[in-house]
């Protein structure tokens, strides 16, 4: 590394050329994402009974676009990202409002904006938006500042507004992921532990109120989760069938494209939310653990990048993104295994879906961006350090 000394100094100043930045990108990380996505292509191919259409090929095309997006995001100067973090957040917030208003006019839950080539899902984009905005806010705030409740007021508002907008869509899963992502940010930024406890108690006591605000089908999902036998042909049917599919897969699975449960249409949404069930049925516990391990490796990369970054913003972004990614796959897997109620959260990089795929690649790009710019010196409020 001694002959790289000149580079390290320039890295610290942040005036690298694009080629130097490309060199800095962790290509092993990109390869890791490709392997995970390949699991997805294979399962989508199988879900369509051995056909590239209608899912596997479009998914592949989006992934290629996603790789380009990842690299482009990684090359942007991190200070530029920080400067525009609020702008991005507000833009997504506006889109959320547009979707909600349209949904009201359209008379139902509408979560996306049709751009023709892609259905833009603002709630999905908010997962990155909230992490960026909070990291921007907490950049330069010391532990002492965190003791001041007024300092916490602003970021709480920044969380509550999009959370409410997504909840009324209603999209319980995404709203949950956003809250959990934000809680992680507060925690890492140094919020006092007793405040978490206080909010936790307040949250628990608010459950009856929240319950009454849930739509009937959401209430049913929770009730069915608590007691799946309650309705074996209705809402409990999905969980039951999913568990049967998983369990019957066994250690080594029924073989690629041999999953009887998914083949005979017993699995709902086998190309999106329940794709992990299909994978575990066809590839068995071995296949499921392989995928889980790949995700864990991604997590390790994420935390390593976070520890390695020299600025608060980068650390917070990296840890926040990594945690969001974690919640994605944890909630999805726990749901199909019957550990938590059925909520519509996709399996990252594998479930069929345009916005989710691009959003994930965007998040991965942010992670890479932090890695590439890990040594850049930043002032408390962004811009260049006056050291």
């Amino acid at each position, binding site marked *: 590394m001694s002959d790289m000394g000149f580079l390290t100094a320039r890295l610290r100043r942040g005036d690298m050329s694009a080629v130097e930045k490309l060199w800095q990108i962790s290509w092993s990380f990109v390869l890791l994402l490709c392997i995970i996505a390949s699991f997805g292509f294979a399962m989508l191919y199988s879900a369509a009974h051995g056909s590239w259409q209608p899912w596997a090929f479009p998914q592949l095309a989006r992934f290629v676009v996603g790789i380009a997006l990842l690299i482009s995001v990684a090359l942007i100067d991190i200070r530029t990202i920080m400067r525009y973090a609020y702008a991005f957040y507000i833009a997504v917030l506006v889109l959320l409002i547009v979707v909600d208003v349209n949904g009201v006019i359209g008379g139902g839950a509408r979560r996306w904006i049709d751009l023709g080539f892609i259905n833009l899902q603002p709630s999905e984009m908010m997962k990155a938006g909230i992490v960026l905005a909070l990291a921007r806010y907490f950049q330069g705030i010391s532990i002492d500042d965190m003791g001041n409740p007024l300092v916490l007021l602003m970021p709480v508002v920044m969380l509550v507004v999009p959370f409410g907008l997504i909840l009324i869509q209603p999209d319980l899963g995404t709203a949950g992921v956003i809250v959990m992502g934000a809680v992680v940010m507060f925690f890492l930024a140094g919020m006092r532990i007793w405040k978490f406890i206080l909010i936790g108690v307040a949250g628990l006591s608010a459950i009856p109120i929240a319950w009454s605000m849930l739509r009937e089908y959401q209430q049913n999902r929770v009730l069915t989760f608590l007691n799946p036998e309650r309705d074996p042909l209705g809402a409990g049917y999905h969980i039951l069938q999913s568990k049967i599919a998983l369990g019957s897969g*066994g250690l080594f699975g029924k073989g690629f494209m041999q999953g009887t449960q998914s083949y005979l249409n017993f699995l709902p949404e086998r190309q999106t939310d329940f794709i992990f069930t299909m994978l575990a049925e066809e590839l068995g516990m071995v296949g499921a653990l392989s995928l889980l391990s790949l995700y864990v490796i991604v997590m390790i990369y994420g935390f390593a990048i976070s520890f390695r970054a020299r600025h*608060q913003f980068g650390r917070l972004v990296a840890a926040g993104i990594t945690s969001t990614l974690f919640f994605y796959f*944890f909630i999805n897997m726990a749901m199909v295994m019957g550990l938590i109620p059925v909520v519509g959260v996709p399996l990252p990089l594998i479930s069929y879906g345009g916005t989710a795929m691009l959003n994930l690649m965007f998040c991965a790009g942010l992670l890479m961006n932090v890695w590439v710019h890990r040594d850049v010196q930043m002032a408390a409020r962004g811009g260049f350090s006056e050291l």
Partner: protein
Amino acid sequence: MMVNRDSEWVRMFNRRAAVLAGGQAVLVSTLVGRLYYLQVVESKRYAMLAEDNRINMQLLPPPRGRILDRFGQPLAVNQQNFRVLIVPEQARALGETLEALSRIITLSEFERERIKKEASRKRGFLPVTVHENLTWEEMSRIQVNAPDLPGVSIDLGLTRFYPQQENAAHLLGYVAAVDEADLNGDPLLQLPGFRIGKEGIEKVYDMALRGKAGASQIEVNAFGRIIRELERNEGEPGADVVLTIDERIQHYAAERLGGESASVVVMDVHTGDLLALVSNPSYDANAFSRGLTSDEWKALSTNDHKPLVNKTVAGQYSPGSTFKLAVTLAALENQVISPEQTLSCNGRYVLGNYVKRCHKVHGAVNMTRAISLSCDSYFYEIARRLGVDKIAAMARRLGLGDVSGIGLPGEQRGLVPTEAWKKSVRNEKWSPGDTLNVGIGQGDVLATPLQLAVMAARVANGGLGVKPRLVRPALSAEGPDEGPVLPSLGIPDAHLAILKQGMFDVVNGPGGTTTASKARLRFKEPDRRDWTMSGKTGTAAVRRISIAEREAGARDPGELPWHLRDNALFVAFAPSNQPRYAIAVVVDHAMGGGGVIAAPIARDIMERLLDLDPSRKPRADDEQVATTAVVPPA
């Protein structure tokens, strides 16, 4: 390297991030544990559940309602039949499977093409019918070879069966496979081999006959074998439709017509119940139900006797002299002539440039004699005095020129011309010659056999506006003579009496001079010996007859090609003094006039009708046994 004031924050961050990562690691390990529990510990149980616990929904087609005659005799019923189905999704290669199947049962190239077409149109998991009406042998051979025939299954279905075969085909119509144009989102229509009504009663009452689909929730194992039924909703079977038809009369009339291209309509003059509606020649509706071969279709569609047309409602004929009923009543109502006044017929009628011939020299005739002799000269004169519009008004009151309301597909309105009609449709002025033609039921006048029967019934029942009825309104209205309340047409009884006297004389006239004198009723029993039939003949030309031909005198119809011969018509009612039934007989291109050909047919049917008297008498049991003994073909 790190700035001092930040190092405290970094330590805090690292500590907390480590806690966070540790927490996430714990959660990941719960996932691993759950996977282990589901896929290793409980794997056997779930594997069994996966085998057995598969739930399928199946749509149950409702049995189609029956069509019955007025006494409950079956005219259209359902019959069990075995058929082969194929689920394209489960057949690895459709072509190969069909090839294998064709080694067991005969499959024509045409059938194979149809199956492939249907398979590409439907969703892959919906079965397609390959072949119907399997014999036991074919069925067992398919079942033995089942392992080589993936996706092939045998199904017990219901097919439509018409026990009367040809006798009521036009009336009943038939059922046939659903066309693409019929698909309207009803999942029933997607079922393999589902049949819908395509003609006649089957079409008109299709929705009622069809019923509502049921559903069955069954558990199937991994190979699609049915384990048990969870829930079954039978749906609603189609409703039966009870017709006013008496199958015996229908049957008899069809037989009596033999090979003629002809139609017969029999009607109760008080209730309007149609007791027979026969169009001849006919076809076997069962052939349509099973599917016609192209040869059969060709034979039916190219036959010049038009077996596919329901002539009773879709055939429009010049009514000929039967139309004189309307002209007579119009003349009496408008007092253009007194009934006793005689006109002289010298065999020709001259009006300006028009020279019309009568078929005979009748000499001096009064009104009743003019009717019984069907003297054209007399009717030319009163038609001229009336003008066409007054004739048309009476014809319409008697039911001509409009659809009857029984709703059979293809029913025609007929045509009652007026001066205004000719102006608006042809943009020509009405000429006096046109009126003369209308006076004897030729020219532009057109009527269906059903309309002619209605006309006869309205005269017979004393001028009441009876309407034909094909379906019994409700089972409770079973009692005899219980018909609808009929509006009066406002024709005085005195006028009807004169017309009826003329019609009586047509059949029973003195000295056997009348054309239809061979058509007297022949009852011998003391209580029925004096029963008579009253009627009116008609012989309608279907071609222009040149003056030269007229001068040469009537030609033997045998000299003419079939399609140029005159139509023979006869309308009648009986008994004359207390009418119960009206009949209209139309024989296309007959070997003689209405009196020679049509009247004896009407007489025979009327005798049978008065014997059975279906409007008043319940059906005798011995007759019932005889009909139900008809064994459906295997």
